[in-house]
């Protein structure tokens, strides 16, 4: 039962976050790049103000799978690095925290990009 409730929370919060994005698209005709940047910056703000931790304790992946989690990781990495290594940590910590995700995405993009069969559209 508990696991069901847990997934219900994830579903509700994750769905709600996406629904807010859809409202933005419907009302302002924002492009997907702007939506993604906006959400990522929201994640940075949530992490800095400390609100992200509480939402994450409540909804787990519901908030960390949307790109808000990516922004929060960036801010968290920079702050943790700053505490451990001072200024150098503040510089390297942010990207260090999201390095795994970025590497996966870029490698997948490169491999699938090379494999894709869109040669037919050659101009």
């Amino acid at each position: 039962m508990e696991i069901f409730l847990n997934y219900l929370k994830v579903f509700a919060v994750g769905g709600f976050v996406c629904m807010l994005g859809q409202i933005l698209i419907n009302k302002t005709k924002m492009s997907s790049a702007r939506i993604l940047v906006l959400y990522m910056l929201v994640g940075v703000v949530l992490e800095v103000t400390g609100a992200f931790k509480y939402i994450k304790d409540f909804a787990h992946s519901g908030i960390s799978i949307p790109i808000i989690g990516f922004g929060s990781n960036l801010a968290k990495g920079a702050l943790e690095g700053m505490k451990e290594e001072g200024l150098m940590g503040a510089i390297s910590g942010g990207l260090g925290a999201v390095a795994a995700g970025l590497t996966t995405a870029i490698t997948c993009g490169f491999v699938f990009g090379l494999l894709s069969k869109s040669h037919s559209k050659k101009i």
Partner: protein
Amino acid sequence: MIERQEYQEYIKQNSPKSPMVRTLFAAFIVGGLICCIGEAIGDVLKVIFKTMSEKDVATWESCIMIFFGSTLTALGLYDKIGHFAGAGSIVPITGFANSIVSPAMEFNREGVFFGVCAKMFVIAGPIIVFGTVASFTVGLIGWFTTL
């Protein structure tokens, strides 16, 4: 010739209006489901690797989700989901993967260097730039406040 303003109004009248309720519902359902799949991957990882730390589970979870998103994009399925779900497929991390893989595949015809590698960042570039600058700013402000 028609005036710019007239043209804008013409566009406004004739551009397809996204029906509010249906698109919101679709975004909610698909976004929620994607987050649930992520949670399920995390739970399975916790069962298989009992000693894995919470942080590593979260990192693996997002890596696997990114991989799934990329694979679905490569198979052409993600765009179909996106057509139905709108923001429900953009906002999750799989949408970020889609925004990298999709242009990389599309611009394959322009060559490896300036096609695949450069156009990969058409949408992801702003995200990475804003993210890097924001994280550095946060770190720098944090550093100054603890001096």
